[in-house]
């Protein structure tokens, strides 16, 4: 089962900081993140990829759903 986190409405750089903390706790698995700006989508993606996660982004009504998963199953 994946975990979910909603960082919409948070000001920069809190979305990426919040997701980073969550990923450090999880260590592996799948995290679904809701973000409302392109900047946060890009920052979270960059951080996650650079710390060894895979990211898939989907745009939904001007907002974004990021599926972050660990590379090792």
């Amino acid at each position, binding site marked *: 089962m994946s975990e979910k986190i909603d960082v919409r409405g948070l*000001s*920069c*750089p*809190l979305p990426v*900081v919040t997701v*980073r903390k969550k990923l450090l706790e999880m260590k592996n698995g799948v995290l679904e993140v809701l973000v409302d700006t392109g900047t946060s989508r890009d920052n979270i993606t960059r951080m996650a990829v650079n710390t060894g996660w895979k990211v898939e982004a989907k745009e939904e009504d001007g907002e974004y759903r990021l599926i972050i998963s660990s590379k090792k199953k």
Partner: protein
Amino acid sequence: MIEKLMQMTRASGCAAKINPKDLENFLSKIKQTKDKRLLAGFEHNEDAAVYKLDENTGIVFTLDLITPVVNDPYTFGQIAATNSLSDVFAMGGKPLMALNIVCFPEEERKYHLLDMILQGGADKVAEAGGLLAGGHSVNDKEPKYGLAVVGLVDPKKVIYNNTPEVGDFLILTKPLGVGIISTAIKGEIAEKRVVDKAVFWMTKLNKLSQELLELNIHSLTDVTGFGLVGHLSEMILLSGKELGVEVSIKDIPVIDGIYNYINMGMVSKGAMRNQKIYSCLVEKNINLSFEKEIVLFDPQTSGGLLISIDPQQVEKAIKLLHQEGFAESKIIGEVIKSKSKERIKIC
């Protein structure tokens, strides 16, 4: 309890500027006063307004106000004042007198923070040779601080932001990256040695010696909210001539340690916005990684001066800048003739 100034604010420093395209739109609706005494006004996004009193005397007038970029209130006061005073220096002027402008949340009653902010500002005005003469305050949710500054300039020696000449060399006097570092401070991942470096540069006055100002400087501006590329674009596009610039990426001074913060997602909305607006002007002649490229768009608070100077005098200028404490000043490129849409060539 540790009180963190940056937790009291949303966007920080010059990254909190209104979108330049929207700003242009609003400003175009304001009726502009044409008067031959007004040597610099709205027309080419000058750093400050200049009013000619007589043949030998001009007044430089500017106002700047920013949100916190560091947590320490005294340091923030120094940075905000240095940033405000910079606009006078960027016109070739000398500050005479300044007024505080401050927004602060009354409800929280953290007036000791406000005391420190104002003290930091007052110390910088004194260091710049100006007099602090009053101010104005507003009760506001987010703290903000800055100065309105009046300075003096010889009207014949005003240095505009849009008067570079083909063949000029471009000098940048401070390293880039302070916007990314303040985002990393807010994200609580910034290391002390990197923050110290950023604070050192943000609190360094952009005051140049008379000897430097008397060199053949054709154009001068400070690099702030629109990032290096944004301010370069103003310099060439608003010149009214067919000018471009060729910039060497390896020569652009950057504060050590910022690439790691970029990889950890510490890029401000302001940097992404600047990139979106100005990247259509950029021609990349080399492969640029995201982190190297985004630094060129990073909004700088109290950033360095961008000097367009006669190539004959560039060596002397660099030598003097180094003597005056701008130890990381570098020649970053050259002004060229260009009709191309992509007038900023990165090599």
